[in-house]
């Protein structure tokens, strides 16, 4: 078969999935905004003027046209979808600026802390898994494995406030707010990293400890391979697939976490913009942000899907994701043995 055609047949369904996720998100958000009680435009105008406003019907209709909120729901749905296809996310009711411009301005700040957070989370997860793997006694390992439930149960604002209180005010090492000073990204990133790191650690350690019990690791230990070598050569690789799957899912976590984290640390970014948009009842901005996050989410999952083909050649043929455990990686060995 033609090589290009084969690649195309592999990629096409994944691209279709990408388009579906964005389209379905748009539909879900549109349904919510349209069919929940309340007129978003009136709410936004009232919030803007600080009270109930009386706008004459003609001016109101003009504003509806301007913000893409005119006509029947059916017309609005297709009108806004048409705008979306052209990359137009509409105009903010509160500021009058194009939503796409606002997102483009604030996004880099959020991406910065999200990327640092992701790196911290991965380092934490690998480090703790290595410790749990090495732990000579059972209670120490169990203690380490108790961390994830804790990391997921802590409110993000509490993490942030504890870090500010300790590192900014007690020690005076790092700035407590803003985004200009050097080091100002560190505390927000750590706050964001904690729940993500906890989830990654849970998945990662489960995969590693499972692989540890397998026969090829037993053989390697018997041959006298040093522990760090077993960890990097035999366990890390096996744990890579389930971890990458979860990595795709953490994008949602990171995106949602920025709302709280950027508020706690008074930073500019997508999260702060979302909060301000909700305060102003600016539905156009919220919809734009949710669509943008859905697109990022779908892109990351597309990359994750393609990464499978590189990491695990067996998934290339079927084009399917393997199960989310480390088990499939062991199967062929058992068959040949």
């Amino acid at each position: 078969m033609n090589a290009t055609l084969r690649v195309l047949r592999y990629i096409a369904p994944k691209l279709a999935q990408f388009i579906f996720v964005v389209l379905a998100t748009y539909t879900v958000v549109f349904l919510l905004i349209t069919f929940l009680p309340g007129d978003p435009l009136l709410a936004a105008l009232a919030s803007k003027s600080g009270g109930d406003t009386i706008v004459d019907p003609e001016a109101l209709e003009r504003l509806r046209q301007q913000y893409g909120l005119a006509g029947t729901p059916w017309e609005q749905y297709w009108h806004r979808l048409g705008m979306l296809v052209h990359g137009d996310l509409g105009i903010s009711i509160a500021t009058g600026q194009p939503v796409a411009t606002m997102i483009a301005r604030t996004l880099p700040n959020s991406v910065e802390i999200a990327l640092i957070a992701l790196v911290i989370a991965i380092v934490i997860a690998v480090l703790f898994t290595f410790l749990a793997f090495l732990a000579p006694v059972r209670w120490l390992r169990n203690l380490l494995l108790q961390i994830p439930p804790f990391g997921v149960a802590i409110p993000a604002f509490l993490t942030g406030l504890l870090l500010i209180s300790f590192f900014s005010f007690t020690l005076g090492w790092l700035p407590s707010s803003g985004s200009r000073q050097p080091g100002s990204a560190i505390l927000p990133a750590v706050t964001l990293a904690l729940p993500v790191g906890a989830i990654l650690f849970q998945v990662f350690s489960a995969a590693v400890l499972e692989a540890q019990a397998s026969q090829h690791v037993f053989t390697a230990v018997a041959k006298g391979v040093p522990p760090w070598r077993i960890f990097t050569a035999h366990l890390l690789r096996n744990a890579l697939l389930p971890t990458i799957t979860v990595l795709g899912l953490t994008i949602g976590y990171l995106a949602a976490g920025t709302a709280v984290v950027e508020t706690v640390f008074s930073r500019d970014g997508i999260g702060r913009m979302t909060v301000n948009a909700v305060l102003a009842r600016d539905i156009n901005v919220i919809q734009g942000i949710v669509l943008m996050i859905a697109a990022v989410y779908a892109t990351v999952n597309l990359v994750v899907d393609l990464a499978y083909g590189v990491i695990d050649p067996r998934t290339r043929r079927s084009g399917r994701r393997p199960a989310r455990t480390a088990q499939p990686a062991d199967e062929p060995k058992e068959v040949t043995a």
Partner: protein
Amino acid sequence: MRLLRQPGFVISLLVLLLVAVAIVAPSLLSTHDPYLSVPKDRLLPPSAEYLFGTDNLGRDLYSRVVHGTALSIVSAALAVAVGVVVGGLVGLASGFLGGPVDFAIMRLVDVLVAIPGILLALIVVATLGFGPVSIGLGVGLGAAGSFARVMRSQVLRVRNEEYVEAARTLGARMPAVVFRHVLPNAARPVIAVAALELGTAILGVSALTFLGFGAPPPAPEWGALSAAGRDFIAAQPWLSIIPGLVILAVVLAVNRVARAIGGER
């Protein structure tokens, strides 16, 4: 009961008992009037008189936390109820109808699960307006996707069981089959998920009230208390940190008990 010998589980039960008392009869636990300002006792650190210290208006933080329990937990409980009912109905319909309808519904559920819950909640709050009820509805909608999945898998498991086929052969109508056979069998997994979702919902609700979308100011909702204390983080850190620690303790307790309901020792 082996569980009762585990200190973590017993402590969790005690925490939940305290929460229950604080919801039903807050004045049994509180030591001061949660709304009364005592100007001379402003911004005091925790002491025997004021267990959690006092805020900038001289109100007892401990009593405010106790009286805020009902607001915080009821929003979260509403969220779980919305999730169970909406998600449950969707899952039930999806599992029973099968075929292309099932496929279409479940793809939409995939998307609902993929959108971060807090963003869905923000959309609902922005459209409906602020307050504990819209927060509960919003967070619940974010949780509905996972309930739909659990319910559907239970329906698929039960619908081909022999006793269900027997009931249908005997001429039982669809509603009877659903209420007599499917729902009772699906109850335990759904309750286990509901218990876990309660912890998540408490976190979601507190995040939204921290951001200022909850009940208007004097209401002592936990997230709002923490947000109000944020202005005093430099000199009076307990004002914002203690309400956060209370949320952490309650979520840990709820999650521990939820795992026990789910069958984990």
